[in-house]
């Protein structure tokens, strides 16, 4: 790892001020992607500004038909939260399947979505549940937040402070993890909102990160069953193809994971 300078932010404002002063700074949350990346010398920020101790950015609460999760809340805290388990069990199950137990104790929702790894689990939940991302500057929809592989709408120095998920009628997530890395080869989050709107979001498979499958959404709107999505396949054209699996293989996985998620919801 190259040399770096660590700063523990006391507040969101303090973190933003520290970032202003840094030559080539990076925000550090759980660090479960950033620290391994720095170990490999694939990233070399001059300064690390730790957001994990900011009290305002932690915790889970029920607010007006939505579940609000502070950005510095760990995956384990989301997975084991009675509020999340009761209101959005699909989201609790997703958080409980990220990485492994040690990673879930450190990794945070804000860190995960800000990194927007194309194989990360959370982006699919944010899109399918129609979540709102709040930063230290504004609020924006999940659709506007995720802009491509490892890319988000965040401006320089902007900090995700919380994510708010409208409570759905039902939802579930199913993923096929890579047997070695445990990252999703394809993960599908299905949700039916209180207003009846259905959304299907896919992670792990797309070249440009998370995407929706509108054909599955309309099929499920009229018939919520595994059979409704069994005959629908996504085009392999924009899917990832690597040593772990071809685009065609991932396209097949998307249909299978969608069927399982619908059955589980």
């Amino acid at each position: 790892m190259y040399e770096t300078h660590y700063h523990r932010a006391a507040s969101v404002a303090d973190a933003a001020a520290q970032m202003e002063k840094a030559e080539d700074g990076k925000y550090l949350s759980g660090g479960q992607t950033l620290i391994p990346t720095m170990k490999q010398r694939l990233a070399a920020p001059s300064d690390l500004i730790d957001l994990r101790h900011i009290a305002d950015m932690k915790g889970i609460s029920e607010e007006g038909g939505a579940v609000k999760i502070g950005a510095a809340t760990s995956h384990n805290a989301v997975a084991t939260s009675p509020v999340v388990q009761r209101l959005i069990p699909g989201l609790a199950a997703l958080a409980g399947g990220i990485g492994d137990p040690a990673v879930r104790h450190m990794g945070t929702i804000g860190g995960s979505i800000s990194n927007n790894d194309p194989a990360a689990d959370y982006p699919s939940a944010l899109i399918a549940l129609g979540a709102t991302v709040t930063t230290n500057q504004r609020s924006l929809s999940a659709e506007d937040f995720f802009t491509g592989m490892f890319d988000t709408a965040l401006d320089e120095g902007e900090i995700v402070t919380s994510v708010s998920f409208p409570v759905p009628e039902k939802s579930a997530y199913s993923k096929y993890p890579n047997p070695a890395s445990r990252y999703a080869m394809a993960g599908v989050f299905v949700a039916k909102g209180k207003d009846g709107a259905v959304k299907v979001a896919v992670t792990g498979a797309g070249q440009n990160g998370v995407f929706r499958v509108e054909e599955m959404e309309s099929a499920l709107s009229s018939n919520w069953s595994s059979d409704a999505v069994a005959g629908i396949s996504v085009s392999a054209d924009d899917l990832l193809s690597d040593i772990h699996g071809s685009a065609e293989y991932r396209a097949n996985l998307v249909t299978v994971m969608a069927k399982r998620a619908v059955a589980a919801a």
Partner: protein
Amino acid sequence: MTTVSMTLNGKKVSANVEDRTLLVHYIREAQNLTGTHVGCDTSQCGACVVHVNGEAVKSCSMLAVQANGADVTTVEGLASGGELHPVQAAFREHHGLQCGFCTPGMIMTAVDMIRRHGANLDEKTIRHELEGNICRCTGYHNIVKAIKAAADQMAAMKTAAE
């Protein structure tokens, strides 16, 4: 350089280290506790698992300075008064190791999973919970047996104490 202080196995310790120092190197090299192992360079193997403020984390994927002020427990901190921790005793009893390199991480992960699941641990849960720990001798069978035995024994001890 930053002075990093923490409570390590119940003892207050402090050392001046570079900000880029990983927690595992702080433990092994600044504090000379070599029970915590480095088994890979990719954050996958779990040989370095320690408890930070009571929760299992990979000490190779955390900077020492991130743990400044924390309460850290390593495998050396489990036994008390010359008595092995029930999980350590179960690993010995059930031969939950072959070469032993992954054992410190396996034990720290096991203690953490028993804390969270208690007596409800079944074989399937144990195997799922071990996802972040790799045994390169592939000796998982006895590791799983040892964890199950320790969970049962600790639950019985808890019941007896009540």
